[in-house]
């Protein structure tokens, strides 16, 4: 019987570049809208309802708020994209039984998991990243730097109801892209 595909046809995985390109497109659109709203102050032309009654400083502050929210959602998407790539790589190594040290380590760990966890293994602590770090096949510094991004991703992705981790304000989408990209590129073929 043929094995089920690791990435089913209805899946829509995004690459890091696709996520960043989307963010830049939205930044362009928001910047255009800000320019239109500011120009409306001078020309008196109609403006979108949300800008009615705003002065230049309020339009700028509103724009900054939107950019900050966009950055947070982009960080969420970037980390999710990298997580998906690492998990897909994990399942391929488990399935294809390659001889590389990372593949062997993944398979050995996979055998220790319950059936439920084999379908949805942990990712960070006591999970795939921990195994990846133990094997030493990639620079542990790269794993550590990517793990910091997870804190920002979890905070945004789970409703922001606990104390904001410092990484949320410290890491912008470009930082997260660099960290995620560095880890993915370091994964052995």
């Amino acid at each position, binding site marked *: 019987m043929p094995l089920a595909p690791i990435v089913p046809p209805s899946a829509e995985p995004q690459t890091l570049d696709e996520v960043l390109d989307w963010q830049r497109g939205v930044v362009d659109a928001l910047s255009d809208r800000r320019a239109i*709203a*500011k120009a*409306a*102050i*001078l*020309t*008196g032309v*109609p*403006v979108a*309802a*949300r*800008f*009615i*009654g*705003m*002065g*230049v400083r309020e*339009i700028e502050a509103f724009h900054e708020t939107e950019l900050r929210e966009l950055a947070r959602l982009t960080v969420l998407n970037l980390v999710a994209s990298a997580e998906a790539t690492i998990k897909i790589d994990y399942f391929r190594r488990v399935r294809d039984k390659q001889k590389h040290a990372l593949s062997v380590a993944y398979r050995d760990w996979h055998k220790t998991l319950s059936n439920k966890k084999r379908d949805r293994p942990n990712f960070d602590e006591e999970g795939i990243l921990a195994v990846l770090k133990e094997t030493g096949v990639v620079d542990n510094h790269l794993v550590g730097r990517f793990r910091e991004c997870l804190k920002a991703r979890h905070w945004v992705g789970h409703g922001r109801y606990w104390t904001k981790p410092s990484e949320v304000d410290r890491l912008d989408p470009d930082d997260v892209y660099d960290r995620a990209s560095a880890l993915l590129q370091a994964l052995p073929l």
Partner: protein
Amino acid sequence: MNQKLVELLERKQKQSDGSPQINWNQRRDEYIAAVRSLYDQIEEMLAEASGAKTVQAIRQGKQLTESYIGTYSVDDLQLMIGSEQVRFSPQGRNIAGARGRVDVLGERSEAVLLLQPDSTWGFLQSRQPKLTVVPLDETALAEVLQLVMRD
């Protein structure tokens, strides 16, 4: 000079030539007059109450600075209603979608009044999900005061 720079400057000059010149002094003066008119309108609405000494109205000058217009003088209107103070504070002429704005600052909250294109004042009830600006009449003034003052 760099050709791209020359082209950019020429293009901007042409765009500027095609658009009508804005008389900033006129805009400023119309805004200041509209603010005075607003205060007259409010004081008239409150006249009966003020006569009974339940409301005191005081106009106090302040300086506003805006891009293109510069610095100018305009009045705040301060209402003393019982032991509470409500201040009508002009925010400027350069406002998106309006010809000027006055904020109403109370001890509980704030409200926004906008000078409409037809030169009447309106109370900005909401921007989202639907833009709602109602004409400033006695009903709207009561709503504004209830909104900004303590219960």
